[in-house]
């Protein structure tokens, strides 16, 4: 951690009791989120990225590990309250996140009431938050959610998150439920907030091209673990983990992947109750070799800003890797 760190996630584990045993939704994730930085968390459905977002705000209990705000562990009511004041969250489905019986004005005022902001400041702050997301307070303040479009709802949700003037905003798939045209508007609003207010974002998405366009750094998750992380250009243009490579070549990102061979993944994402032995990706990995089904790889530096959890980059195994390539 350094002065620039807003939040630190350390070896975080979240487990759910499922019918067939314990699902390890988040299985030892460490992340650093710097001030004013847009950190992308990319992965398929079921990779644990949404659970990670919830665990960062204490919305689901963690089984192990720690969440830190500016280097201080978040545990207990007081620190959790502070975290939830300084870091806000936006959810995926704008049709579900707004209480159907509250007017827009009430929805945006609510965070101020909950956090005990003096009543005198409410009106001005609510107005500013609505204006920041491009909604006219006069026109929209008295409306109910059912009178709004999806994009307008999501903007109300963003306004409600901004009204506390947070330092960080965790966005869980904020545009995946929206039409393409509306999507651009919402992304523009988020980009503007980052520029003007220096707001840091955690941007959770399954859309690699979106992460590439928006993020400073990217962490790729697979089955509850970060398998690769680094600066967005590095990760997208020179992916080091076979999983990221497959994702990159599968998505039509212009100029990404260097036009290399297409590696389409076979099989499905395994169940989080049955994490494969060794490297959790090995059953689907096109480049697996000798030790992959036995050794669980840590994140290994691969040069530059990048880290990848892949034995191909383990210097101790260099000769075996060579041999495997020779086949």
């Amino acid at each position, binding site marked *: 951690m350094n002065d620039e760190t807003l939040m630190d996630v350390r070896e975080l584990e979240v487990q759910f009791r499922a019918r067939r045993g314990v699902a390890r939704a988040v299985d030892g994730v460490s992340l650093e989120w710097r001030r004013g930085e847009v950190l992308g968390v990319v992965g398929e459905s079921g990779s644990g990225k949404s659970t990670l977002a919830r665990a960062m705000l204490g919305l689901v209990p963690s089984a192990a590990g720690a969440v830190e705000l500016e280097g201080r562990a978040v545990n207990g009511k007081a620190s959790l309250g502070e975290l939830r004041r300084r870091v806000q969250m936006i959810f995926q489905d704008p049709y579900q996140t707004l209480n159907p019986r509250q007017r827009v004005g009430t929805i945006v005022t609510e965070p101020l009431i909950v956090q005990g902001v003096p009543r005198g400041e409410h009106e001005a702050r609510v107005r500013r938050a609505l204006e920041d997301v491009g909604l006219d307070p006069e026109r929209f303040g008295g409306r109910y959610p059912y009178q709004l479009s999806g994009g307008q709802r999501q903007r109300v949700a963003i306004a409600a998150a901004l009204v506390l003037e947070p330092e960080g905003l965790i966005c869980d798939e904020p545009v995946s*439920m929206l039409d393409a045209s509306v999507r651009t508007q919402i992304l523009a609003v988020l980009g503007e907030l980052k520029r003007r207010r220096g707001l840091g974002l955690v941007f959770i998405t399954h859309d690699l091209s979106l992460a590439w366009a928006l993020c400073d750094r990217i962490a790729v998750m697979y089955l509850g673990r970060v398998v690769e992380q680094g600066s967005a250009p590095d990760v997208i243009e020179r992916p080091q983990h076979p999983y990221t490579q497959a994702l990159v070549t599968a998505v039509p990102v212009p100029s990404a992947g260097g036009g290399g061979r297409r590696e389409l993944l076979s099989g499905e994402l395994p169940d989080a109750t049955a994490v494969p032995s060794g490297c959790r990706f090995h059953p689907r990995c096109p480049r697996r070799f000798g030790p992959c089904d036995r050794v669980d790889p840590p994140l290994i530096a691969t040069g530059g800003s990048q880290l990848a959890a892949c034995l191909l980059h383990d210097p101790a195994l260099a000769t075996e890797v060579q041999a495997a390539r020779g086949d």
Partner: protein
Amino acid sequence: MSGEQAGAAVEVLAQPEFGDEPGTVRELLLGTWRGRFGLAVVALFAFMALFGKAIAPYPPDASSLDVLAPPSIHHLLGTTESGADVLSQVLVGARVSIVVGLAAAAISAVLGSTVGLVGGYFGGWTDRGLDALENWFLVIPTLPLMIVLARLLNPSLTVLIAVIGLTSWAGTGRIVRAQVLTLRERAFVERARALGAGDGYIIRKHILPNTLPLIFANTVLIVAVAILSEAALSFLGLGDPTRISWGTMLENAFESGAPSAQAWWYVIPPGLCITVLVLAISILGYLFEEHVNPRLREHG
């Protein structure tokens, strides 16, 4: 599923809910024949409850020598075994029936929604305990329980209200609990928690407002049940002996042998009042319930 279909699906979910638009309740009451009928009957009886004493032609307990007289110009609905005017008693009796109905339903609504909200929201052992209590009240035959409770206490209006209220909340509790179980998983509740809102705040501002229409519809039905229960208890002599209600009228009629004396005018008016009022309130209650719970509607 294509984007368009997904959009259509969420639009359906985003339909305004009961009470969102000020027009819906009025439309419901005035726009359907069931609503109009229910409203008219309830208004008529409400008028009786408010002004029955004032418009009654005789004091309801004024006895005369004209005992069990059939309807005539002087006594439009005949007289009782003590020579009192049946019409006057019916008019005055409306107040007790309706007051007991409303007050008992209010107690039941408060008890049922509290138990449902607390159990459904907190879950765990709290819920299991409250659920067991609810099941106990649901399974036990209500009328015998009411009779036992009313026997144990001195008959009075307050006892009557308390006994009916205490025995009729379980259904409300169950319905509220089921609704809360789905509400607490809704994203707007999670959003409130992410803002730092506590349980009390979430229950008051997010869960309760979204269960109120359901509680309301259910309570209207409980009013009908409570009026019926009041009549039953009073008929069994467990009502307030100092007040005239339709139930005590029926009791007096049967005690005095009015049915065997062919004195239909003594039995039919209070019986018909109970039946028509309970019917009208039930119709309104089902109307509201169908509106709150679209699954109960016949055709989507």
